[in-house]
């Protein structure tokens, strides 16, 4: 568990690096079938994809209060020995300290590009998903509200959903997304997908023949957008207009998840 003090955290990281990857690593996330929401599902899937790409063993544990157990308040998080780490980038850093990296063969400019595209995906796709779930009335009433409150008894289900909505709206306002219209949000998603497709240029993965954490992140978001049933499927239709991205999603799913749920 982290101390909250940067220096102590660093020392603990370094000490942890000397130990091999334990076999009992657990990945905590909300219940997939009845509870998890689009942005959380995307992030959970991205971390799972990354760990599978690194060939690391882990067990998925579903908890209704996973986000309250997380040190950053965001899902997913992993428990690896004495360490509890949440969100993709810190998990990537932690895995790197064990001497396992998907980017060790990249040039420095490729690493810069990767960080920039990861920012783009975080900023555009994650905020679009949050906007869709919490600001689009139809999606909020039909999907977000019942799913988010499903694990709480009345009246806690309403209170918890209301509190979370106000947090998300605060965040979207801060990021300048709350004032956008739904069409502007779709336009942002389209531009983002176009930028990603232009970069992919028909390659197997973004930086050659091997995947990186960028591929894992994009897989998490696009797979979730494509497979989550929503009242309005416009966002999924936008992604379907980019065959190279669909191919990437199918490739990652086939290589690392070995399921056949894609159409």
């Amino acid at each position, binding site marked *: 568990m982290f101390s909250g003090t940067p220096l102590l955290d660093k020392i603990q990281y370094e000490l942890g690096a000397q130990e091999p990857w334990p076999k009992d690593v657990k990945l905590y996330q909300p219940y997939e079938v009845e509870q998890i929401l689009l942005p959380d599902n995307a992030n959970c899937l991205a971390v799972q994809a990354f760990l599978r790409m690194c060939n690391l063993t882990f067990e998925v544990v579903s908890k209704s209060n996973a986000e309250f157990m997380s040190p*950053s308040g965001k899902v997913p998080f992993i428990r690896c020995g004495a360490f509890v780490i949440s969100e993709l980038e810190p998990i990537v850093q932690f895995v790197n300290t064990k001497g396992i990296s998907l980017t060790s063969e990249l040039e420095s400019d490729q690493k*810069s590009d990767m960080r920039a595209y990861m920012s783009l995906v975080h900023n555009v796709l994650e905020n679009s998903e949050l906007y869709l779930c919490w600001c689009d009335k139809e999606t909020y009433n039909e999907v977000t509200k019942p799913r988010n409150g499903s694990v709480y008894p009345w009246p806690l289900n309403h209170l918890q959903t209301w509190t979370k909505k106000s947090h998300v709206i*605060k965040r979207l306002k801060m990021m300048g997304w709350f004032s956008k219209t739904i069409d502007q949000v779709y336009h942002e998603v389209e531009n983002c997908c176009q930028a990603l497709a232009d970069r992919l240029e028909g390659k197997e993965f973004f930086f050659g023949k091997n995947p990186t954490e960028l591929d894992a992140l994009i897989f998490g978001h696009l797979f979730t957008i494509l497979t989550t049933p929503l009242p309005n499927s416009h966002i999924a239709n936008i992604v379907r207009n980019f065959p190279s991205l669909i191919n990437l999603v199918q490739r990652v799913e086939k290589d690392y998840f070995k399921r056949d749920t894609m159409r």
Partner: protein
Amino acid sequence: MSELLPFSLRIWEADFGLPTVDPNSLTALTILKMSNANVRITYGSCPQYAAIPSLTRNNKLLAEGSDFLESVLSVCNLDSQLDGRLQGLSMAYKRYFLETFEPLFFYDCWIHKPNYEQLIRPWYMSAITFPFNFLYMKSKRRQAVERYHCLKKMRTRENFLTQSYEAVSCCLEDFNTLLADRRSYILGELPSGLDAIVYSYIKIALSLPVPDVRLQNTIKNYKYLCQYVRNLTRRYYPEVEVEYKHVQPETAVNERASTLTLLIAAISASTLMMAYAHINGIIHLKFPKINLSR
């Protein structure tokens, strides 16, 4: 016909050798300069009367508020001269820079007490017309504190700062690496919206006479990035001179103690050290004996 009319850009005042002190204002101005657009600049001193910054043409409002920069970028369409791949790269790097550098710069100016109280607040209080300055600063500060708590999330202030400085160092290193081949602009030989954004934030962060210079020192570690900022200043703002209108640098930086104070402090310290050494037998001071018997 309206295409030939000049843009009218209302921005915050020039100061500290900057064409304007606000990053959004400077970015918009730089985008217009890079696009060779015909622009008329007005300096605003009352944001309640008309938004600062804002862009108009033929009395028609083109950009203001939270999506000001996006609107300016789409009006000027500066990135259209890049090919598809570079347009995507420009978009990604813009998000990367704004997501990483901007929050720390915002903290440094609006939350970090010495910088806010000794530079930012006095500057805006002096630049905005009375009594609107009080109203503006009150609402701006409230928004800033709200935003800071949103950025900080569940972290402590120290953790937030450590992680932010680490992320900013990594981001600046990435831009420094891109510019290491001495190219004119970040994505090659053509200017883009990304150049306007990076230039504006770095130029302002380096030029503000803030009391705590930690962020400035971090930026100064990246020599190609600093050289790039100097080159763009020479190219687009050769006429801007360093002057201090609203806040003098003497009051912005920590006041130096006067020579008399230093002298008194030195004598007192030396006397105390000598007395301590004498009492403990480290040194033996011989005083002349005075014969009182007569």
